[in-house]
């Protein structure tokens, strides 16, 4: 049941045929783990908090730096040096006091990840490096927790959804099989802030759709966004039977 204050706060959601009071109640019950509070995690966390996702767990071990502020829009210039999760928790609680926000301020290893996944309905990978992305995919597959992956560099964005509850679904490793490839990241290649913002916002959009039961069109897909032309490409990711993560062992 939604309180009076929630009926007003979410009134624009309640007008949506595809969401309504039923969908809003699902959002309130939902538990989402967001890993990475940078350029993707900033808009993703803000939108999920604003949308009324009842339990958010946010994870990052970095402190805010001056060079983050060009794209990590949840933070302010006078907050440099503070832990991002602490800043984000304060920001989200101010934005929406109706929800619960829990912080993880350390780099999670596999045992802690496995415990956290017991408390999560859905995971958003908003991280910035390939080894962590591979770890997140592996633990989410093992824990059967659906995973929304976003990434951005330069003017390019990538978006995927891997439904680890579905045994026939592909996983991130089916598409990006190596954790030792040369890595492109924001600090060595640059990124336009608005491009990473688009991708983080889309991760939030897909999360909301999945929670309320609107079919995600990025399941087993890789969507490529070109920020220069605004064109999208869409590719199917089939389950690789020989995948080291989700293939037959």
């Amino acid at each position, binding site marked *: 049941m939604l309180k009076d204050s929630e009926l007003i706060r979410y009134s624009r959601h309640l007008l949506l045929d595809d969401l309504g009071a039923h969908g809003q109640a699902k959002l309130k019950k939902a538990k989402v783990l967001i890993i990475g509070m940078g350029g993707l995690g900033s808009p993703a966390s803000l939108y999920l908090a604003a949308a009324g996702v009842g339990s958010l767990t946010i994870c990052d071990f970095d402190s805010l730096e001056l060079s983050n502020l060009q794209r990590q829009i949840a933070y302010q210039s006078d907050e440099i040096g503070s832990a991002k999760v602490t800043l984000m928790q304060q920001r989200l609680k101010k934005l929406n006091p109706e929800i619960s926000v829990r912080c993880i301020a350390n780099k999670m290893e596999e045992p802690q990840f496995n415990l956290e996944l017991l408390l999560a309905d859905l995971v958003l990978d908003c991280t910035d490096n390939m080894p962590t992305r591979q770890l997140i995919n592996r633990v989410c597959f093992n824990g059967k927790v659906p995973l929304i992956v976003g990434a951005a560099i330069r003017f390019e964005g990538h978006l995927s959804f891997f439904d680890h509850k579905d045994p026939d679904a592909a996983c991130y490793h089916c598409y990006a099989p190596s954790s030792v490839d040369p890595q*492109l990241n924001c600090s060595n290649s640059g990124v336009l802030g608005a491009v990473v913002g688009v991708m983080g916002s889309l991760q939030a959009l897909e999360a909301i759709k999945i929670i309320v039961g609107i079919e995600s069109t990025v399941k087993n897909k890789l969507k490529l966004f070109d920020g220069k032309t605004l064109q999208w490409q869409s*590719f199917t990711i089939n389950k690789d039977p020989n995948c080291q993560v989700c293939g037959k062992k």
Partner: protein
Amino acid sequence: MKITVNEVEKEIQPSSIEQFLKDIDSPIKGSALAINGVIISRVQWPNYQLQENDSLSLFQVIAGG
């Protein structure tokens, strides 16, 4: 035979994906490839034979955020 790579037409000798990428000096590591809209996993690249009129999309895997 004719194929297209990122919407550019190319005339190539019959070859595997891996051989083709070597022939055009395209890096294997860090790359992803789709043929006719379907991602082909990297373990298949040595043995996957390109076909006439295949449409290849070659791009880099990105991890930033």
